[in-house]
Every structure is written in structure tokens, then in C-alpha cells.
């Protein structure tokens, strides 16, 4: 795979990942051209097209287009499922992922992608394993933020494998704590004034339909959590 682009129906680029060296100018040109080409296509059209000397494989999930450029001998259908698996991973991680999750947590979207694809090739196809890797990172994060307050606990640098039991406890602790805060303190006004975003409806549309019933609640909760974390610090 040469690159992957995520962009919205309005043509806004949400994520770009390049697996071949290109200048910024060239990247912008490619993006512009491809976004235009793909957006111009009608819903029932096929998911593949020839573009320059590459093959483009794309699929739309709710308001987001996922678009991959592969080489001539690469397999189109399996690329389509690479996209799907990535969406599944995002969905599982964010819990009913929507475009807003990817906007506000773009760095996470990149991290998840790196665990799944590396150098343009599939690295790990097991959903469990990818999420485990990301969770481990998140554990380290929780861990280090707690470790800050009690520096004697340990230094993560010295561990070849994160001590899972300890982490688990810590995790549970923070988790319940945050939950409580999140549930108790309903922000008087949302941190992010979603209602004022013109395309907020589309943005909050889950990429997976019928995956879970909660739609906006999770986002609001996440925002609340973010705020509470901020306060903690």
C-alpha cells in the first residue's frame, strides 16, 4: 500500500498516512485530486478505480471516506477488508466510533493504524492483539500519570514487560474514579459546543450502524472525562 487517506464528505482530510516518500507539495496535490475523484463517484459504483499507475480502493463509512492506494499487483478485495478491519478497530477502541472521535483524537487514530499496518503492509490482523497493544500503551499512560504523584512506585523504563497485575489495579482505580466523576459532574455546558458545528449530525453518526445504541452520550462522556482529567492534573 502506498498511502491511506481518510476524508469527510465535505472533502476535509481527517487522516493521512504515506508509505512512500513524497514531497509535501506532491502529497497535497495527490490528496486534492483523489478527494475530488472519489467524492464525484456515485454510491453504487464499484470501490476500485485506476488512478495514475495505482489502484484506488475506497469505502465510505457514514460521513467518512477511507481511501487506499495500492500497487498494480496488490489485491483489491483484501484491501477493502483492511479498511473494514481498521474501522472495526477504531470502533472497538472508541466505542461506536464517529467522525468526531477521529477529529478530536487524531493521534489515537494514528497509533491504532501503526499497530495494524506498518510500512504499508498488514502487521497484525488479530483485533485482540492490536487492541491489546494499544491498551498496554494506555495503561502505561495511566500508569505514568499516577507514577508522577507517587514516583517511588516504579520506573516504566526498566520493565521489559509491563507488570500487568499492578497495572490492572491501577487501571481499575482510575477507571472507577473517572467514571464517578464523569457520571456525577455533568458539565453545565459541553466543553465542545457541538451544537454549533454545522455538520455535527453527520459527524456524530457512528461509522458502524447498529453496532451500539448509544450515539452522542459517549462523546459527551468522553469530553467530560477529558475535563475531569484536566482538573486532576
Amino acid at each position, binding site marked *: 500500500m502506498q498511502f491511506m487517506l481518510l476524508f469527510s464528505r465535505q472533502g476535509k482530510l481527517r487522516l493521512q498516512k504515506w508509505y512512500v516518500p513524497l514531497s509535501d507539495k506532491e502529497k497535497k496535490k495527490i490528496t486534492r485530486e483523489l478527494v475530488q475523484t472519489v467524492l464525484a463517484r456515485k454510491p453504487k459504483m464499484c470501490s*476500485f478505480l485506476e488512478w495514475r499507475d495505482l489502484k484506488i480502493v475506497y469505502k465510505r463509512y457514514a460521513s467518512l471516506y477511507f481511501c487506499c492506494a495500492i500497487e498494480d499487483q496488490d*489485491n483489491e478485495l483484501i484491501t477493502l*477488508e483492511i479498511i473494514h478491519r481498521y474501522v472495526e478497530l477504531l470502533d472497538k477502541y472508541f466505542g461506536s466510533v464517529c467522525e468526531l472521535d477521529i477529529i478530536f483524537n487524531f493521534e489515537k487514530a494514528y497509533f491504532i493504524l501503526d499497530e495494524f499496518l506498518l510500512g504499508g*503492509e498488514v502487521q497484525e490482523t488479530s483485533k485482540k492483539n492490536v487492541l491489546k497493544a494499544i491498551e498496554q500503551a494506555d495503561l502505561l499512560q*495511566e500508569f505514568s500519570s499516577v507514577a508522577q504523584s507517587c514516583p517511588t512506585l516504579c*520506573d516504566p523504563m526498566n520493565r*521489559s514487560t509491563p507488570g500487568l497485575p499492578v497495572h490492572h489495579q491501577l487501571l481499575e482505580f482510575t*477507571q472507577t474514579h473517572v467514571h464517578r466523576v464523569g457520571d456525577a459532574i455533568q458539565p453545565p455546558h459541553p466543553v465542545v459546543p457541538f451544537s454549533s458545528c454545522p455538520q455535527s449530525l453527520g459527524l456524530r453518526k457512528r461509522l458502524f450502524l447498529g453496532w451500539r445504541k448509544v450515539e452522542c452520550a459517549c462523546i459527551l462522556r468522553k469530553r467530560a472525562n*477529558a475535563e475531569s482529567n484536566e482538573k486532576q492534573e
Partner: protein
Amino acid sequence: MPAVSKGDGMRGLAVFISDIRNCKSKEAEIKRINKELANIRSKFKGDKALDGYSKKKYVCKLLFIFLLGHDIDFGHMEAVNLLSSNKYTEKQIGYLFISVLVNSNSELIRLINNAIKNDLASRNPTFMCLALHCIANVGSREMGEAFAADIPRILVAGDSMDSVKQSAALCLLRLYKASPDLVPMGEWTARVVHLLNDQHMGVVTAAVSLITCLCKKNPDDFKTCVSLAVSRLSRIVSSASTDLQDYTYYFVPAPWLSVKLLRLLQCYPPPEDAAVKGRLVECLETVLNKAQEPPKSKKVQHSNAKNAILFETISLIIHYDSEPNLLVRACNQLGQFLQHRETNLRYLALESMCTLASSEFSHEAVKTHIDTVINALKTERDVSVRQRAADLLYAMCDRSNAKQIVSEMLRYLETADYAIREEIVLKVAILAEKYAVDYSWYVDTILNLIRIAGDYVSEEVWYRVLQIVTNRDDVQGYAAKTVFEALQAPACHENMVKVGGYILGEFGNLIAGDPRSSPPVQFSLLHSKFHLCSVATRALLLSTYIKFINLFPETKATIQGVLRAGSQLRNADVELQQRAVEYLTLSSVASTDVLATVLEEMPPFPERESSILAKLKRKKGPGAGSALDDSRRDPSSHDINGGVEPTPSTVSTPSPSADLLGLRAAPPPAAPPAPSGAGNLLVDVFSDSPATQPGLGPSPEEAFLSELEPPAPESPMALLADPAPAADPGPEDIGPPIPEADELLNKFVCRNNGVLFENQLLQIGVKSEFRQNLGRMYLFYGNKTSVQFQNFSPTVVHPGDLQTHLAVQTKRVASQVDGGAQVQQVLNIECLRDFLTPPLLSVRFRYGGAPQSLTLKLPVTINKFFQPTEMAAQDFFQRWKQLSLPQQEAQKIFKANHPMDAEVTKAKLLGFGSALLDNVDPNPENFVGAGIIQTKALQVGCLLRLEPNAQAQMYRLTLRTSKEPVSRHLCELLAQQF
């Protein structure tokens, strides 16, 4: 899954992002961004040291701004600082920033490499993975230099965690792709191959990609991977849908790994080891079988994953191209997909079939789907699918379906997307040329192309049609007539004017006999387009005009007037001005003979690869032309009329090694020649039966037959070489005609151009034109050896009293013919009275000191002076009755020597010179013709009737003329043609 915030709570970032999102305009957004950039800059520059969290937050904001499409020129240092933070999230954001934003020549690269080195050495797998991801994402040469040696070690180390191995494999792959020279091969390579056996499916998945890439460059070093890959694949394919747990995707076991393994196998030929091969074939069969099973899930993911493996399997089968059984099964499977309701599958099936079409085993099987594919071309709503259909039609085309496919593609062209028109034009042009059975169809097709999509017809395409028309004399008359008709459209494309201008300039004389396309009409038609054309086209037309002056002396005054006009002589364009001045002077200064020589008809072009094909290959990259190159799949392409390249025997002028004008020089400017206006064939411009015009010459079938005739052996009689006598030697001076002379002569009864004679030394080509009782013949003598012929002297001899019947004026030719060179001799012929025997051509020369001599019959027969006469049935019968004296009729009943094809017969009769009269004979199978033989002394009216009897394979030919010997002679001549 914890429900905590997955972001690490950078509130400032979230606020900033939502601010940006709330901006109502681009300007507002830029303003907000600039404010933020100023803020970050001041923080970074401030005296107060920033804590890790703030640094992370600001770096993240910069990253966000960059991803919005703005340039970021600071913050790199802060990001590098984050790399050595002991907090994971800070490190992670630092790496992300570096991966996205760092350019390879950054002076920070040393610092970055240091941080990476530390993390790689940390033995903390999470950190190691972060560092490896960063190398893989940047993939620069500097990183290669720093780490290419370390990563193989990490990859094969016994104590590396699985996740680290996975990242290391793909990281190495990226470095290897970027700079293969930096990755040292060594002891590790053998161990990498054994990763195919790893227990961890994720490790295998990552490793296969690396191995595949390494295999392509060093196939021998990695040969052992084939059997390992086969056994791995076999285990996956035969596993139940739940065996592989999390590696099963929608009931399909390990689809990604399967596809990668099948890709890997495509780097090698089929396994030599019978056991391995058997196991592999079993796998492939299992995949094909599974495709027929009912789906285990209705989800599209299930079918996609399953079919991804199926398509990759088919690719491997095509790659091996050795298992007819599997190839045909693959084709049938794809055939099912052609009508699948999923657009994606239809698209892929069309694409895959393209490659199947080039295998000799499956070409026929692919062809059976032609109707479905044509239907796809017509009805698919998605242009990319239609394009695949067009590609497939191109790939499956062969002699049997060329006409159908070309006409479908022409129809598609009318509505095709602009982006792909040029490609379709090229494809149609190539197919029409390659599979042309008669070249009139080819000419029609190309002119249609220009008509439908003139803008997309590149130079290569219209150069090529001129090249072919110039080289194939059997199509010249038809081409002239057709372009003349095409030019009559009120609006025609400039490319049509170019083609028309060139062809009429060369061959306009072939249709000049018809008053509707008389020389002045041709000229004014062309000139009516002149003012609308570009400079290049106008330049071409000027050359056509000067050729007209030579072809049609009666147009001289008009054309000189045009050339003399101020708009030409003082044209601002230098090229046009120069042409006008030079042509005007040439036409007024030069004698008719000089003009005829300067403006002689273009010699045939040397054959080479079709430039159109070359262009298509350029456009589509290598392999695009494969459908055509790959002649093995189409044995028929070697048959008689092979296609593209006219064989030497059908080229009008033999030019053994003369490399004349290249294709690029095809249009006239280089050397505008034309035949003199003396000779002319009368082609009825408005006739309805295009393929059968006089001047068409023999059909290709016949041309082939003549090619099969053994070349006449060298004359055994070597007479004393006599340096070119000034006068015709008496008949006693030359030997009798060679035994094949009559046979060779017969080839030219119905045609005017071709190869008269050929042996190991010499080739003699003929090109001739006749009008009324006059004719001009060009003889081309080609020296096929590399040694000079000396004392070369061709002479024409009139046996008996022929001289009183036929006057032949010859011009002397140079007495030396260099090796590989060709000389030309012009003969002016005048028919004085009717004659029965042709003149003789005696050629004498010295080759390597040995005198050589041969005598041929010059292909001038009485029928050359035929003028076709159209008449109604009533008139015909009236004249027929008038010629009822027994001696006026000659009749012959004879057996057919060639297949009895009405079209061929028609063409021959027209080539013979008489007009063909429709609706005269009550039996439509019969042919009736009429014409007048023009001699200086008298005219002889001729009527003829030919009755084929297909059942008996016999013909009855009846001729009635006003002169008894003429009837008999014509009857003899014509009877030998069938």
C-alpha cells in the same frame, strides 16, 4: 475495554480543535491558527522551562495544524526532546510528530537517531515498537544507515517479543525498499525464511511481506520459502473456519496471510518437487471448490475475504500458466462473477479475465463470454467497470471476433469518458490493423475513429493509416474514394483533412476518372477546408497541391493561382511561405518529366513495430500490449494474412534493405512525390460496393497464393553481358522467357502492382497505371545481395511485329546497382492496336563477375487498356445480340482453381478492367461486365458474362467483342484468373 478517556486529556488541544471547527470562514480559521502559532512560539521561546505535559500539548497542536494543511517550521526540537521523556505518552507524541513532519535532511536526525537507538536498546517491547514504527514511517536513507544492520538482529533474536518481531520485519521491509544496498544479507536471511513456520500468525503475516520483497531481488537465496509457504497455506486452507480463532475473519481463516502467501508463491515458477506441487494444486483446488460452497455468512466481509483469496489463487494459476484444467475452472468461476450483483466482483472478474485471455489454455474459454462483456460495456453504469470491459474485449480479440469487437468499441467511443478516449482509439486502431482481413475495412475503421473522436486520434494513428495505404496497393483506390467521401461532410475533423490531403495527393488519380471526383472537384474540396486548418495541416495541403499539379496538369493554373496569392507567398508563417514560394517556382520552372520525378509517389515505408502499439505500451506501462505481443495464444495470427505487417510480397515496391522515410517523416513535406497524371484507374467514387473497386487489385487471399508460388529459379542461360545497347536489341539477342514467365504474367492480369519476379539475387517490382490507350509503368530492380551488380541493363523487346501494336519507351537506368540498393525504371506505354502477346523484359547484369540474364514477360496485356462502361440491362442485351456472330464470341468452361468467393470474383473482374453491371443477369449469382478497349487505332467493345457453378466448382465464361482475336485472347486471359 475501559471507558476512560482514550485521549490523555489534553484539554487545551480539544478546545483548540473545537475553536477551529467553529470558524465560519477560512480567514477566521487562519486567524485562529496564527494566534495559536504565536502563542506556541512564545511558550517555546519563553524563559520558563515547559513541563513535559505542556510540551506534548503544544507539539500535538502543531501536528494538528500541520495536518490541516498548514506549514510548520518550528517545534521539531521540542518534539525531539519528547522522545527522551520517560513518560510514554510524551514519547509517543514526539514520535508521531517526527514520523509525520520530519524531513530526512533535518539536522535533527542525529538526535532523533540517538533517541531511537536508546529505545531499541531499552528491551521494553512497547518502546522498541515505537522506535521501529518511527523508522518504518520515516524510512529515510539516514535511518537506514543507522539501523539497517541492527534490525535483522532484532528480527531473528530468540528473545524478541512477537510484537517486536512483527514491527522489525516490516521496518526492515521499508528500509530495504528505500535503500536495498544498506541491508546486509547474511546469516539472518535463512532464519527469516523460517519465520514462515512461526507459531504466531501475526509474526508470519508480517514476515511474509518481507520475504516476498527479498525474494523478488534474490530469488535463489530464498528458494526454500516455497515449500514452507505451501505447507503453511495448506494448513490454513484446510482448517475449519474457527480453528484460527482471532485470525479468522468473518468465518474465513486468515485471509490476509493466505493472500500474502499466494503472492509470495507468484515470485517463483511452479514447485519442482512433485509432493510440494501436489499439495499446492490441492490447495488451489480447495479454494476453487470453496467458492462453490454456500456462504457461511451473508456479510459482505465474508464474501470479500473469501473472494480475495480466490482472486489471488486465480492470479497464481495464471502465473503458472501450466494447468489447463485449473485455468479453465478459473475462467468459469470468473464467468459467474461477470453477472454478479456486486459491482466490485464484476469489476475484478473483468480485470482478471484480461490476464486469462492471454493464456493459450483459457483464451477460448474467455471468448465464450464475449456477449456478457459487450453487454457490460453497454450497460455498466460505472465508467471504471466499462473500462475494464473494454480492456477485456481488447485482450480477447482475435481474428474470429475482431469485426464485432471493433464495431462495439467504436460504438462505445461515442459515449466514452473523455479520459479514456485516447486509449480506446489506440486500441481500436491496433485491432483494426492487426486483424484486418481486407484493408478497406481497416481504412473504414480508422476514418470512423477520426469521425467519432478526431481529437483523440493521435499522430501515430493517422500516420499509420497513411503508411499502410502507401504500402498496400490493393487498398489505395478504395482509400482515395473513401476519404473523398468523408471530406464531403460539412464539418470534418482536421485529422480527416490531413489524411484526406495526403491520400488524395498520392492516389487521387485513382478516382479522377469519375466526373464527380474529377481533379478540379478534388482540389476545390480540399481547398474549401484549407482556411480553417492549422499551420501544420495547411503545410501538408500545400504539398498535396503541388502533387496535384503533377497528377492532374489541368489543375495547374488554379493551383498556381492559389500559391501565388498573397496569403501564401507572404504568409507570416515561414514554413508556409517557403513552401508556397518553392512549389510555385517548381511548378513553373520544371518540365513535366522533372516534376514527375520530383513528385513521384512515395515509396513504401520500411516495416517496423507499429508506433501505435509502442504508444499504448508507453501509456499503460509494460504489458499493456501483451495481448497483442503474445501471439502464442492466437495461433491463427500466423495465418495467411497475418495482420499488421504487409508481407514483402504484398508490398508494391520491393525494397530489400532500403530504409526510406521513417514513420515520422510520413507526411509529404520531406519529399512530395506523385505519379504523373498519365495513368489512371477509374474508380466509381459513389459505388455502393466499396470492397470491390477496380484498382483494389487482388484480394489478400490471392496475394498470399501468389506468394506461395516458388520464385523463378535463376535463368540457366547466361548470355554475354552487353553494356546497355542504345537501341532495343532484336529478339534474337535475348533468351526465351523463363518457364514461369506466363504464370508470373497471369498474376498481373487483374492487378497493376506487385512483385513480378524474385530470386536470390534480384527482385523486380512493378507499379503501373493505365488510362485510355496510355500507360506508365515503374519497374523497381532491387539488388538483394550485398555485392554491386555491374553492367546492369534491363531492356524491353517487342517480339514479332508487336512494335506496330504497342509502343514502349524506356529510360536507361544506371549500369551499377549497389548491394541492397534499388533502381527504378520508367516505361511509357502506348497501345496502338490490339495485341495478343506481351512485350518481353530482358534483364542482364554481372554479379560477382558472372554474367546473369533473364527474360520475363512484361505485364502489359490488352485488358489494361479497358475502359469500363456502365449501361442499363436493356442496352446490354441489345449489344449482346448485335455481337452474335459465332467468331465474335469466345466461350470457355473451366474448373475453379481458387475458392469460389463472390467478392473475390468481383474484385478480379473489376481489376480486369471492365465495369460490373448489376441487375442485368436474371441470375444474381452471375457476373456481367462491359468495357471498351482503347487503342490508338480503334476501339473494341467488349461484353462478358461469367457464370459460376458452386456445386460443380466450375465456371462458364463468355466474351463477345467486335474483334474475333480479342474475344479469344481476353477469354484466355480471364479464364486463368479463377
